[in-house]
């Protein structure tokens, strides 16, 4: 369950202070899949960053899986993410000095799991990369790197998976392959999925879609793929 109340995010850049998120209210029930669409610069990725505890909200409340993120310090946030929340980035963000197997094993090892490597190998096999376990990120194609990142994201069987334009750097075929895997695994594990994407077809594949513009959620009713559940998902959205 993700619960955002009047979420605000201001960042200070070279050009001065910029408001990125301007009061976002959102509730995502456990086990649901929600896509976030919107133009570039609308705050989609920042929304993911705040939910993951990567950015700290300037105002409002962020409660993820029952935990108010404002109450956690940086180490607390790291521990919170362990095994509970995973992120799939557009640019993969694999550790270049570790092999595919080691990259996937890292979150398990941080959790202290003794079977980390075995489970990592299983996860890689699940995404079709059993033959690439010893390869370094630099030795793999973009699609393979993203599948490795996906294996790393799901290997801990997290309750929440945040995906930030996971197919943005992939060609159509690879993108579809990765997303098929994401949806299959989500279904199998019952993970809550929050997906940021520009791809309308991908957005439609989720239970619900919400649209962001200029740091706010604007969700026209016709965008709901499952309107009956809309009330459960969104609170405070413009009617």
């Amino acid at each position, binding site marked *: 369950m993700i619960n955002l109340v009047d979420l605000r995010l201001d960042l200070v850049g070279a050009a001065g202070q910029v408001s990125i998120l301007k009061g976002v209210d959102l509730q995502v029930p456990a086990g649901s899949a929600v896509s976030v669409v919107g133009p570039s610069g609308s705050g989609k990725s*920042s929304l993911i960053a705040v939910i993951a505890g990567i950015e700290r909200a300037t105002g409002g409340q962020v409660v993820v899986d029952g935990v108010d993120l404002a109450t956690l310090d940086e180490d607390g946030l790291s*521990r919170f993410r*362990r095994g509970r929340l995973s992120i799939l980035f557009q640019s993969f*963000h694999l*550790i*270049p*000095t570790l092999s595919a197997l080691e990259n996937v094993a890292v979150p398990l090892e*941080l959790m202290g799991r003794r079977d980390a490597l075995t489970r990592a190998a299983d996860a890689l096999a699940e995404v079709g990369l059993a033959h690439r376990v010893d390869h370094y990120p630099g030795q793999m194609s973009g699609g393979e790197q993203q599948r490795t990142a996906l294996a*790393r994201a799901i290997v801990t069987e997290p309750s929440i998976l945040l995906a930030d334009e996971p197919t943005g750097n992939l060609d159509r075929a690879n993108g579809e392959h990765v997303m098929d895997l994401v949806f299959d695994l989500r279904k199998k594990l019952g993970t809550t999925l929050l997906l940021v994407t520009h791809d309308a077809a991908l957005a439609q594949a989720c239970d619900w879609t919400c649209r962001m513009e200029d740091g706010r959620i604007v969700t026209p009713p016709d965008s709901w793929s499952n309107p009956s559940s809309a009330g459960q998902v969104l609170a405070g959205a413009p009617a």
Partner: protein
Amino acid sequence: MSASRLPFTLSFALRDLRGGLQGFWLLLLCLALGVAAIGAVGLLSAAVDRAVARDARALLGGDIVVEASGEEITAEELGDVLPPGSIARSTLRMSGLVTSETLNEAGNPRSLAISLKGVEDPWPLVGTVTLDPPLAVEEALADGGVVVERGVLPRLGVEVGDRLNLGDRQVTIRAVLIDEPERVQGIYGIGPRVIASLDTIRAAGILLPGAVTTWTRAIALPPGADAAAVLATIREANPSARFRARGIEEIQPQIARFTDRLASYLTIAALAALLTGGIGIGLAVQGWLVQRRAGIATLKALGATPRQVLLVYALQVLLVATIAALLGMIGAYGLASMSAFLPPDLIPFAVDGVFDPWPLLRAALLGIATALLFAAIPLLDARDLPVAALLRPAAAENRHGDWKVRVLVIALGVLVVGGLASLTTPRPEIGAVFALAALAAAFLLTLLGKAVLALVGRAAKNGPLVLRLSLARLNRPGSTALPVVVATGTALSVLATVLFVQQSLESELRNALPERAPSVVFIDIQPNQAETFDRVLAEFPDASIQQRAPVLRARVSGIKGKPIEEAAIGENARWTVRRDRGLSWTATPPDNAPLVAGEWWPPDYAGPPLVSVEDEIAIGYGVGVGDKISFNVLGRQVEATVANLRREIDWSRARIDFVFLFSPGLIDKAPHTLIAAVRVPPGQESALLDAMAAALPNVTPISITEVTRQVGDVLGKIGFAVQAVASVTLGAGLLVLLGALAASRRQRRHQVALMKVLGATRADLLRHFVIEHAATGFLSALVGLLVGGIAAFLLVGPFMNLTFTPGLVSAAALALAAVVATGLVGALSTWRLLARPIAPVLRGG
């Protein structure tokens, strides 16, 4: 390259540098440090050479000095060869003994072995003597007055104005000797210096027949006289003289032998710093060019040839290296100028100005050549970068180009840098040996570095995350661990070499030598004093005589019928003809040196003189059994036939040994003394010396403990100087470490952010980085100590003939210091990264 292209490459190189030289900070620092160290040593060495040239007359004590053992050189002996207006005065040097009225614990007067010098008024002929209080020398030495080195006072419990016993008479301490000329007349005894007038010494009754004395006659020529011509006349007029004549032209090379050698060792230590910094230079250029890959690929896409690309970036390196060399030259001048603040006994010459353009230019040239050598591979990588890197950055990762060209360029660079390094070293042969050794060490360090990193990487691969993230990274693509291990390993190997050699020497002096050497050697025992000597010794039941032998001073004057000046003598044997040597005689062969040729003479042999010669010296002389060697024994020519050759003397055993052993007969009629080696427990040594001084005031004890202390002092000073310069290498190693950290900063920042996203806490990350860097330090220490140990072992064993005894505790301390320092640097450099927010890093890709 056409002439019209050159302006483009130059202007592009300059345009590309407009952003500033920040990217080159590592190159600037590494190169400036190395050039500063080499330049400073060169400047000091040149300044000392100039000071020696300037003070040569004062260092010698006159324009010409003649020297002989045993008896004073009279004016008649020289002949009527000195131009009118010349002044000649005698000086005597010998070991002596003084006692004070202050009593020791046993109730005997305190005694002290001294280096005694007797002078004749006016003294000195050239240069000045500084006394405290500032008396005139003639006033201080009149009426039984003496001046003493300050060290005499506390050891005898006396002050200026107190009286001492010298032989049969009492003398008065008039002043403390602060400085005297004639430094190169040689060490004339063991113990602090005491100067008295010749009259005082004669009156003391210590100039007994056979006493070990060195007499010089210093000659100051009138202005305008041709010293070289007078020297030649003296030699011509006295073809078989018992004395040796020297002029100032011969003094400079004699001093240069020592100063050049020391300067060469210091230059080598500084070269090591430059070469270590070279690794940093390579890293800096590589980092700079990696940042410019897109630009280079674009340049090529626009039509630039590989050669133009090479020229653009080589020009940049050359320009920055020149700036660094200039900074290094300024630093060298600053460092050398600071020599004025060093203790005077470290540089015993008054150095005026240190500025000299040549050592600075040599250092700068070597620095620039080193920079180009270490930049060669990254520059060739830039030249061979495929344009496809513009589209696929991964295309740049694979090395392109012809490996033969690279090997050729590197070989040429090594040759140039090695040649320049040899020429920069005052003794080029030492520099050349160093260049070869450095090349071998570089290969060894790189091989060892790769091996240990691969081993650790492999071992950590299946270990827990904390080890894999910290250790396995060391051997992964893009890791800077190898250059860091090689650079800090080089620095540590230099330090370890100096440390291990010093420790082996100290162990030899402090432990091994005292175990087998006598405690005290008594010289100048008159044959009729042997009984008294034995009686005094008998009062100390724990003391025993190890050896006793007759000895007299003589000079080798001819070999196989040729005068010594005309004889071809090997370098290893030259020292035996430079001055008088002690020789002895015995009826029976010594037990410690078996014969390698010829036969020992019968015990009752009474024929013409036969001589037994140490075989190495015989080889140097080119003589064998049956050949003849002439000796000047107290002015009389004695020709002896070589009867046998003995195995080389092991001088490290500190026994009384003689290169020349005569058959008894003719030789033992000459005035001689006895020499005795005595072993006595350390606690009784002082009492024995005092008792012997009371009974036989003319007999001089030479305490081996004192000798080893003095040798240890000299070695300590040399070691200090070499270590000071060697520590610059450590600075260079640290710079490389910092450079590597800076180069991997982006990668580490990314990793920190990612690991946090995946759930790692700051403590987890700090632990990873500390382990990684501490492991780098440990591996550097391992490699450095191993290579340093091998180098020291080779130096101590085959070259010095000593036992290799490295101090394991200090080696462990060095390793620990490396681990702590690198771990700390790693932790500090990571600390700031840990506080960085994650989002901007991940946004940046």
